[in-house]
């Protein structure tokens, strides 16, 4: 048995989330299969799996701490269990999967609901904070009124709170017209069209500068 096949077998046995048998499709001779098969029910492997699961649960809990904190114990446990069963929580640093986990949670919450608003708020904050490391405001010289504008992928507007990578502390209360424009851009539109619809040029420019809007 090669090192690669041994690792695949042991890794699958510990993850225990794959549908097929952990030893399926591996090139094992009878002795190797016997050795690994014997390991499966052992207390040592069961404990290793328990450690893996608890680490995954803790990572997932950290990844969506705010949203999970406002759910009932039963809902929180159910969501985390389903997420771990899907293979979630394995990344050492949870930022990379936090966005996907928050999407997963959002899909299980009533719409509309306070819980969903908070989930979207946490997700928008996460996206904006990650993007602060590489955010560059749009150069005004590159503004093209004929290009479609859309909501910033790293921005959000949740219950009148505007969250964007170019804002100090990432957030501020959105003005009524900003809320209207955000709703309007659920479908991208060119700046030229928005100007015709009466949205002020300054408003569009400001939102572009903070990353709340972007050119598609």
């Amino acid at each position, binding site marked *: 048995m090669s*090192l690669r096949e041994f690792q695949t077998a042991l*890794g699958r046995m510990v993850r225990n989330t794959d549908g097929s048998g952990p030893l399926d499709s591996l090139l094992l001779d009878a002795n190797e299969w016997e050795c690994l098969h014997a390991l499966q029910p052992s207390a*040592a492997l069961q404990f*290793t799996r328990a450690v893996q699961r608890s680490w995954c649960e803790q990572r997932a809990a950290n990844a969506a701490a705010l949203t999970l904190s406002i759910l009932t114990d039963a809902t929180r446990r159910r969501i985390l269990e389903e997420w771990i069963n899907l293979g979630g929580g394995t990344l050492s*640093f949870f930022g990379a999967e936090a966005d996907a986990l928050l999407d997963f949670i959002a899909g299980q919450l009533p719409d509309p609901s306070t819980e969903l608003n908070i989930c979207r708020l946490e997700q928008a904050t996460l996206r904006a904070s990650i993007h602060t*490391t590489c955010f560059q405001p749009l150069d005004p010289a590159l503004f093209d009124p004929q290009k479609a504008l859309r909501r910033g992928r790293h921005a959000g507007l949740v219950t009148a709170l505007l969250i964007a990578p170019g804002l100090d502390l990432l957030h501020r209360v959105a003005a009524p017209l900003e809320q209207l424009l955000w709703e309007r851009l659920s479908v991208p539109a060119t700046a030229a069209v928005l100007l015709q619809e009466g949205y002020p040029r300054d408003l569009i420019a400001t939102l572009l500068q903070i990353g709340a809007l972007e050119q598609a």
Partner: protein
Amino acid sequence: MINVAALGVGFPYIASMPADFYQSGVIDFVEITPETLCFQRGNSLAPVPQQVAKARAATRGLPMVVHGVELSIGSAHGCNTGYLEMLDLFQASWPFVWHSEHLGFQTIAADDGATLEVGVPLPLPATHEAVELVAERAAAIGKRYGVPFLLENPAYYIPSEALPHDPQIVDDIGLMNRIMTRSGCYQLLDLHNIYCNALNHHLDPFALIDRVDLDRVIEIHVAGGSWRDGFWMDGHNGRVPPPVWRLLEYTLIRAPNAAGVVFEVLDPFAPRLGREAITEDLRRARAIWDRCHPVTRHVAA
């Protein structure tokens, strides 16, 4: 000849610790896990400048060593090159005295060839193939950064004899010794991991230490753990147990090139342990260091 000046007693950088903790005089150097100061996008890791700046400000004036967790140096399908690219950037902005990683693997190849995270580090089998794979990578990493590269002995719950092993190598200690010899890298000897393995597999921890190539030990870890389901867990969630202090005394006398002892505590447990208890254990580590070890050491390359 690589000269590694003895640093003394260290502690991990934990962002939630009070700002003055690292300047209180109980810590001689700081151990940084750079991934905790990064954001991850796809397979790439990039340091977040604000977080790096905050860590540097809190630990100003202290020598720094790196203790990585994301490399997965033993993965047969390939180690995490994104980690190394991140470490290139990190070293350029904040040079480290040495750096270390864990001997084990935490990723496997999925059916489609993509990398699949296991979610927990797993032990390598004590085989020649594992020696060759890790030694080659460790040697290359040693050259890449120009400072000593250390591998940490793991805690494991699946006993070595239940894994494939070549009779000449036997177990994890034989594996580590061979990798050191073949690669020229050094060891981070985690005494709490030795203690865990001894408890869980009914071994004599002093006999285990006697088999370690102590000349190649540059850093030592001590930590706490807890019982769960009949196993002693390497949780880094408590104070150092008395037997681990005895192992530290035993080892320091015998490890002529040891340059630092780190008391490992995981971020979430630091507030629960409290500053006072952490300080007490750091002072105890220093007392043992002062009693058992001279100030400066030289390591043969």
